[in-house]
């Protein structure tokens, strides 16, 4: 029977961290290693890649052969969660769209992410376009933390000296696959640079780091790595922090609100246990939110009190505002040069082997900022639906014996076509800067709650010309690259009726900006240390503090900023300021 009495934990922790992803994990790691007693709350179950990964499983070990019916990226993907969670709805204002991905598990979305680890550059922190907003910090202030994240967690790449694509401290990069050599050649002809990928995978042993294996090239980082050969918050931060004896994790704990006292300072949090619905409170001298940009905003807005009538930390009214994802669009085709190709293992690493950093000259373009391009294709492990494209294109190129196929077909000739086309596909996807706008936001839906009785988010998000024009530029570029490498493209280019194939906001899972940092408490939620202007013992360490993300995937910046915030916390504690 459920007790309706709230269980109060008598211990007062030095810090309560909400969320165990990149931001929460790093904050917990730094503070626990400094000797603080830290409690970490995670809404999902405990997850250890060493035991819980589906790495090296075969497609027939899934009854749906890896189809995405249950998990959005297929049965073998590591994410427990998705854009829709049973009993945890969200709503959208009429005429707007947003897709909200949540991973409910230790390590959050870092268990299944693409491990693409790009630094934001000087022009991302201090934009020169006259349109997008500046951060209160410069690249040079963040650089030392990026460097330390590189050394602590590991990243491969090549030193290139590109102004707004800062180099890191790199391990050796994986060499390109055959399709990627063709891509590189085609892109160069199209005037698009292609350089070695940058991913957080240990392609060689990381000096000074114990307990992690090096990559054995199965290409399955997205399933989570049994030997901790890539970055997951679970394997690299939370589990090691637990070994200090200073970090306690409570899993299946869905935080309801941040508790505050009469002075408006945070005193702890209340949560509901998702397994038995028991209500709990825990106390902490500090509260650090790393629940994800939108979940942290939701928590703040749901934490109303006399001292914080509009929600905790929301005297500016900006919690939830400036929500922005990355833009995303993609294209693909196949390479006739790769038909009937020789078979060998080209699994490689599970992050990108190559990519194109933004190269454009914005003075000649009708949108600000830019995008990078990620590439795919090759001889992948078979999975549900992976050959569906072959009967659509098998008539486009004669067989090596000169036979002309009819589109579609069946029988021995079709079976040969599947073999003929296997591994010949190429794909590319742009990931670009979407503008952080006041009018794109999330707020508390006035009439809906989730299954725990927690008021849910309502999203307001619309793409504007800047994003649509960027998507058009992506599609035109993709066509040029595909053409220059000699690829056959069977589908026509998406047009304005689909915003040039621009994905709905939220689909790229790079959302941030909902608790932006700044120097002016009227124009920002947090100061430049990610400390709430309104509440000095409250911090946010996910992508909420991002003023404006670049086209660079968020994770490396979340890690660097969370490390920076955690060290600021230690310093402020020593000065007795918090």
């Amino acid at each position, binding site marked *: 029977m459920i007790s309706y009495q709230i269980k109060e934990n008598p211990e007062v922790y030095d810090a309560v961290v909400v969320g165990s992803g990149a931001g929460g994990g790093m904050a917990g790691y730094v503070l626990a290693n400094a000797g603080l007693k830290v409690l970490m709350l995670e809404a999902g179950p405990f997850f250890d890649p*060493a*035991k819980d*990964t*589906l790495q*090296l499983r*075969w*497609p*027939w*070990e899934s*009854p749906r*052969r890896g189809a995405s*019916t*249950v998990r959005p990226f297929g049965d073998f993907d*590591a994410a427990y969660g998705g854009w829709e969670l049973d009993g945890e709805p969200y709503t959208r204002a009429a005429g707007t769209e947003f897709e909200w991905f949540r991973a409910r598990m230790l390590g959050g979305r870092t268990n299944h992410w693409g491990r693409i680890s790009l630094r934001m550059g000087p022009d991302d922190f201090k934009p020169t376009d006259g349109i997008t907003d500046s951060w209160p910090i410069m690249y040079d202030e963040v650089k030392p933390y990026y460097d330390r994240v590189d050394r602590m967690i590991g990243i491969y790449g090549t030193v290139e000296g590109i102004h707004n694509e800062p180099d890191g401290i790199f391990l050796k990069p994986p*060499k*390109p*696959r*055959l399709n990627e*050599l*063709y891509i590189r050649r085609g892109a160069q002809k199209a005037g698009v640079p292609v350089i070695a990928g940058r991913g957080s995978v240990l392609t060689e*042993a990381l000096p000074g780091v*114990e307990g*992690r*294996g*090096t*990559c*054995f*090239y*199965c*290409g399955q980082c997205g399933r989570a790595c*049994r*030997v901790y050969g890539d970055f997951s918050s679970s394997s690299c931060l939370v589990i090691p922090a637990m070994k200090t004896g200073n970090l306690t994790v409570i899993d299946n704990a869905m935080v309801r609100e941040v508790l505050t006292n009469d002075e408006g300072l945070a005193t702890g949090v209340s949560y509901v246990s998702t397994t038995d619905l028991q209500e709990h409170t825990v106390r902490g001298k500090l509260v650090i939110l790393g629940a994800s940009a939108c979940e942290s905003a939701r928590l703040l807005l749901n934490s109303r009190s006399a001292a914080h009538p509009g929600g905790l930390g929301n005297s500016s009214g900006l919690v939830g505002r400036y929500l922005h994802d990355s833009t995303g669009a993609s294209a693909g085709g196949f390479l006739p*040069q790769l038909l009937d190709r*020789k*078979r*060998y*293992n*080209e*699994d490689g*690493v599970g992050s990108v082997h190559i990519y194109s950093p933004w190269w454009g000259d914005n003075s000649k373009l009708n949108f600000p900022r830019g995008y990078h391009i990620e590439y795919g294709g090759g*001889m992948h*492990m*078979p999975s*549900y*639906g992976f*050959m*569906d494209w*072959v*009967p659509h294109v098998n008539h486009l190129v004669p067989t090596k014996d000169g036979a002309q196929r*009819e*589109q*579609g077909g*069946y*029988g*021995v000739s*079709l*079976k040969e076509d*599947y*073999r003929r086309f*296997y591994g010949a596909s190429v794909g590319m996807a742009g990931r670009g800067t979407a503008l952080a706008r006041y009018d794109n936001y999330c707020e508390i839906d006035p009439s809906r709650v989730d299954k725990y009785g927690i008021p849910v988010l309502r999203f307001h998000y619309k793409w504007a010309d800047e994003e649509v024009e960027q998507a058009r530029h992506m599609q035109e570029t993709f066509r040029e690259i595909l053409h220059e490498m000699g690829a056959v493209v069977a589908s026509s280019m998406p047009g304005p009726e689909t915003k040039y194939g621009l994905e709905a906001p939220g689909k790229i899972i790079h959302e941030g900006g909902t608790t932006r940092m700044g120097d002016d408490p009227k124009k920002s939620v947090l100061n430049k240390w990610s400390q709430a202007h309104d509440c000095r013992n409250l911090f946010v360490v996910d992508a909420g503090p991002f003023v404006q993300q670049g086209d660079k995937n968020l994770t490396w910046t979340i890690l660097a900023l969370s490390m920076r915030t955690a060290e600021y916390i230690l310093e402020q504690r020593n000065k007795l300021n918090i």
Partner: protein
Amino acid sequence: MNRRDSLKALGLAAAGGALLLDGCGPQTKAGKETAKLADKLPGVQDWEHARNGKLAGEKFFTDHELTAIGVLADIIIPADGVSGSATDAGVPAFIEFMVKDIPAYQTPMRGGLKWLDVQCQRRYGKAFADCGESQQLELVNEIAYPAKAKPEMGQGVAFFNLMRNLTASGFFTSEMGVKDIGYVGNRPGVWDGVPQDVLEAHGFKDAWG
């Protein structure tokens, strides 16, 4: 940890390199094509496992329908000199699972099979599965080539597209199919770029192109 230690952590270090690769390859053994649903793999959540078990316990297609699915699957992917047929690889059971997993397939599959039977009944006075091979192929020829199919066969074309995709998915994700397509990864190894002979055959001067 170095790579050797990674392999140790995987429980594979006792074997030498070559042995290691063999030891991790697909084991071709009859009857292993369908995952044993009773075994919950580590990392699969309880509710996911329960859902799989529930779906596996339900029956959607009739025996008559499953027979027709088997005939069609083997027309789409017959045995040849390289590998067995779709039914050898357990494709009908896979399709039975998939229509329960993705209920949106149920009506197109059931209705498509019925459409096929009605066509055969009119032409040959028999259900599709009971027709002779030449009759079956005569009809399949009218729905297997989208670009040249007659407009009145549109529903049949749509059904055959779905059936073909499900068959290819089921076949090439089976142990037999993975071997057939020549996928040789999913095992610990070292990636050192495109093999030299392949680089040369494609006119690239070195591993970076």
